[in-house]
């Protein structure tokens, strides 16, 4: 047995990241408490290095490790996004952990390990590999959700996430086992060959597909597999929530789409209606329930459900039967674009929540934002931009994301879907604007005036700057990102 060196070079970024995670775990005990920040900076450094390595692979399509791993532009796109999100999460966490008094260096190792799991997900060419990636990511996130062990809410969210996550991964794995039974392989390409050859009447494929959709529906928080999302997002430390809401969702979408298209691309009529229905109820429920929330994190959780619904429009288009390949690719690229944009605005929004303090606690109630515009003009304005963008109103990036998604939908002949999506986008404006409203149009009570404040650090400022720059810049000059997404979606088969 020889080490497949060539393959190892291909997964160099993963290796670097895992290596750094291990290094942090090792260095943690011997690092004095006040120097632990160094470990965070090291993680950031490795992310930069990895991104450079990964980016160099753009435009190629290479298989590695007995075709279990694929490295194509599609994967590169997602990985770059994941690096960015992880980096921002780490930066955000540096201040947040300190304030919340959960300064554990393991945290950064966990971010890196979860990232490694996600990277496996996005470049997995094999169901089992993807499953393991999911598990690596999920287990890491279960633990990270419970990082505030001294708070029952955090543990509770961790427990719920864990129970439901394990449940869903059991379902997912069962689906994989059936697929294996039907096709004799778990590699996407081979599944595709068998499924396509066999036609669409095999009930076992149906069942397996359904189980996969349940499993991934859980990961991307699609209705009715979404119910963990609000509880977990609310209870988990905010920086972790941001990470979950963005990175885990993006990676899950990446894997989900790849599986659906690469393995089951031949039986699109079998699943596209199902996804369509899920898409609609997800958009509807996410936006509806978000209206009545009083907790910002919970509201953002529902909003992330709704956005998952929007992203599913991309999946629907990509999987719509009877359309040209170019339109299908447009579905893929619009989804990629959407999630990239979503990442910026969601990270920004969660960062704002993370730095808002009410006395010694996190200010996560909508009420806590009351009159923020009076005391922190800049902060309130940033939140305004994020909310406006989440609502999809130009000239922010949120609009561009929706524009491309709906353009793809209309192109696929699904104008009515675009209309439904937009109706709920209009409804969503209500709850996003409510935050703007409390910030700008309400007078804070004297108590709020006294106790709520923004805890800004250089790192968080940088995160916010990044997010707002992304939101505004992508809103005004989305061209480059659109091109990259288009290119990526084309190399993806």
């Amino acid at each position: 047995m020889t080490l497949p060196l060539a393959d190892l070079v291909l997964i160099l970024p993963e290796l670097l990241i895992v290596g750094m995670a291990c290094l942090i775990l090792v260095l943690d005990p011997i690092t004095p408490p006040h120097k632990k920040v160094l470990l965070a900076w090291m993680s950031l450094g490795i992310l930069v290095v990895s991104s450079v390595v990964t980016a160099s692979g753009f435009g190629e399509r290479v298989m590695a490790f007995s075709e279990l791993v694929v490295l194509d532009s599609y994967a590169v796109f997602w990985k770059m996004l994941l690096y960015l999100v992880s980096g921002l999460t780490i930066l955000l966490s540096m201040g947040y952990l300190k304030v919340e008094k959960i300064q554990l260096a393991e945290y950064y190792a966990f971010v890196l390990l979860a990232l490694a799991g996600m990277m496996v997900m996005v470049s997995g060419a094999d169901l089992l590999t993807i499953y393991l990636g999911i598990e690596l990511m999920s287990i890491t996130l279960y633990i990270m959700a419970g990082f505030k062990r001294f708070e029952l809410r955090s543990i509770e969210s961790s427990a719920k996430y864990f129970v439901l996550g394990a449940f869903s991964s059991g379902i997912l794995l069962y689906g994989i086992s059936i697929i294996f039974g039907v096709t004799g392989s778990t590699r996407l390409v081979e599944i595709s060959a068998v499924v396509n050859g066999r036609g669409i009447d095999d009930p076992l494929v149906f069942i397996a597909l359904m189980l996969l959709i349940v499993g991934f529906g859980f990961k991307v928080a699609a209705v009715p597999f979404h119910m963990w999302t609000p509880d977990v997002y609310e209870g988990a430390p905010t920086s972790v929530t941001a990470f979950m809401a963005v990175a885990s969702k993006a990676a899950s979408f990446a894997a989900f789409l790849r599986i659906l298209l690469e393995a089951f691309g031949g039986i699109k009529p079998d699943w596209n209606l199902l996804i369509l229905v899920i898409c609609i109820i997800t958009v509807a429920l996410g936006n509806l329930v978000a209206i009545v929330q009083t907790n910002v994190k919970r509201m953002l959780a529902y909003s992330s459900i709704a956005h998952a619904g929007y992203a599913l429009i991309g999946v629907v288009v990509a999987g719509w039967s009877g359309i040209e390949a170019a339109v299908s690719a447009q579905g893929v690229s619009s989804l990629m674009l959407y999630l990239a944009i979503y990442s910026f605005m969601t990270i920004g929004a969660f960062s704002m929540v993370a730095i808002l303090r009410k006395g010694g606690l996190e200010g996560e109630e909508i009420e806590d934002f009351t009159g923020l515009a009076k005391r922190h003009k800049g902060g309130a304005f940033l939140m305004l931009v994020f909310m406006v963008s989440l609502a999809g109103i130009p000239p922010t990036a949120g609009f561009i994301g929706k524009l491309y998604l709906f353009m793809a939908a209309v192109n696929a002949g699904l104008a009515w879907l675009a209309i439904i999506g937009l109706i709920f986008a209009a409804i969503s404006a209500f709850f996003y604007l409510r935050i703007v409203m409390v910030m700008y149009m309400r007078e804070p009570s004297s108590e709020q005036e006294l106790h709520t404040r923004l805890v800004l650090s250089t790192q968080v400022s940088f995160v916010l700057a990044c997010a707002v720059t992304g939101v505004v810049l992508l809103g005004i000059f989305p061209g480059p990102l659109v091109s990259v997404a288009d290119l990526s979606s084309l190399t993806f088969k």
Partner: protein
Amino acid sequence: MLYALIPLLPLLAFVILGLFGHWIKDRSHWVAVPAVLGSFILSIMALVDVTDGQALQIPLYTWADSGNLHIALGLFVDQLTVAMLLLVTIVSSLVHVYTIGYMHGEPGYARFFSNIALFTFSMLMLVMSDNFLQLFIFWEAVGLCSYLLIGHWYERESARAAATKAFLVNRVGDFGFMLGILLVFVTFGSLHYQEVFPQLDRTAGSLVNLLGAVGGHWEISVMTLICLFLFIGAVGKSAQVPLHVWLPDAMEGPTPISALIHAATMVTAGVFMVARFAPLFNHSPVAMNVVAVVGGVTMFIGATIALTQTDIKRVVAYSTLSQLGYMMMACGLGGYIAGMYHLLTHGAFKALLFLGCGAVIIALHHEQDMKHMGGLKDKLPVTYWTFLIGALALSGFPLTAGFFSKDELLLAAWMSGDLGKVLAVLGLLTALLTAFYSFRLVFVTFWGESRVDPHHAKHVHEPSKAMTFPLLILAVLSILAGYLGIPEFLAPAFPGAEGGGGHHEGSAAMGMMVTATAMGLLGIAGAYWVYVKSPGLPDRLAHQWQSLYQLSLNKWFVDEAYDRTVVMPTLNLAERLWKRVDIAVIDSAVNGVARAVAWGGWVTRRLQSGQAQNYALAMTVGAVVILGAMIFY
């Protein structure tokens, strides 16, 4: 081009007074009076120019172009115009002079002058218009000026209401006028007289289906429709029944403006308009008849109401109403020249009467109720004598201007057919009433015992020269106007119209003259009998004919009827529409959608119970549903 100055001089005065009135204040008349006098002099020049029968056309500028609509403002001066120009400038000049005395020391002195200057300008432009739209523009402008002037003493509730009422009622008329103009445009493709009138013969026979929109069939001549629409405008402006209600209320304005509005300018615009559009009306017998009947009814109703009013100005106002009815009736019966003739003479003696009223009122310190007058003829001799001349003219006393014009008018009516005969008889009857109430006015005000508030009684004296001078001039005119040969002068403006060839000979003319004179004298005698000889009689009569008396006193209850059928229902409807439709239905639907969405959120939210097993259950339900769907799919 010099004639462009006729309207422009008053405009200049208005602009100067409007912008700098604040500083000019008491010297305002030094701006306004010369301007109007200038217009008057220029009008005389125009008269000379026009006498040879040549109409003048003075283009000003292109107002607007749009599609095939082309509107250029311009001046059109023919005999009709010149007659009106003279009337307007003379009366306006005299009113301006009179105002110096009447409004002396008022805080709104400059404002008043600027407004009457604007008023004069508007009226001059109106009569000089060479197209329908320009006529309409200044038609409305005249309305605006009357609004401003009637509301001059806006501190009074009644003045405010009267001003608004005048504008609104006029608007109703203008609505019809506007429709008429629109119909003219879509029918003829132009709004200029010179382009429209030549097309008339070609279009005369065209029909339109009024019920086309609802699938019915009721055809009517285009010309009739146009004329009726235009006539609605005239009804509003000339205070014909049923849009006459604004005019008596308009007495709330200062007296000079009453004179200007009621004698020379605004109210005559309607008659002028019908006369100006004679070529149109001539093509529609139906419309002509409508005009005649409306005029006749107005004539009669105005006179009956004037019988019992006690406000000195209101009596004169209702007499105006009645006289306008005469003119309109004449126009409707084809006697445009007679109508215009009466319009001009009426302008003179009605201005005289109003200004005389003003003199009385000012002498009695703004007392307008005849019950508090009486016996003034010694104290106010000039006023009395001039007023008497006016009253005689109004009554059609022989050899006064009113005699000639009314006679001409009634004769024209009598000669014009069956309807004309009926209306002529009504006209004669009205002449009786006219004479009666005119002299009731004279006797009650100037004769008999003084009922003046003793407090003011000893201060009663003849007003200043500025006020008596116009009275004298007008008195002269009230007699002289009958001898100027006005009908002959006007004749070229109405080719083909009857009654242009001087006084009629023959038995009809003679009979009419005698009858009318007799009626006038009878009325005067009656008034003398009732108000001088047997002072208790009026009350007894009123008591005896209670219902008729009330009908007359309360102006046939028209105001009340409008209040109940139009004004209140409109306001109620507005209130109800707002509360029961806008708020309760439309806005509730909007808010209801929002509430329904939020409610959906509340309901859906309950699913999120916080129990992990529920969540797992939801996932399972999802799976079951999907599988089930696949079974049945």
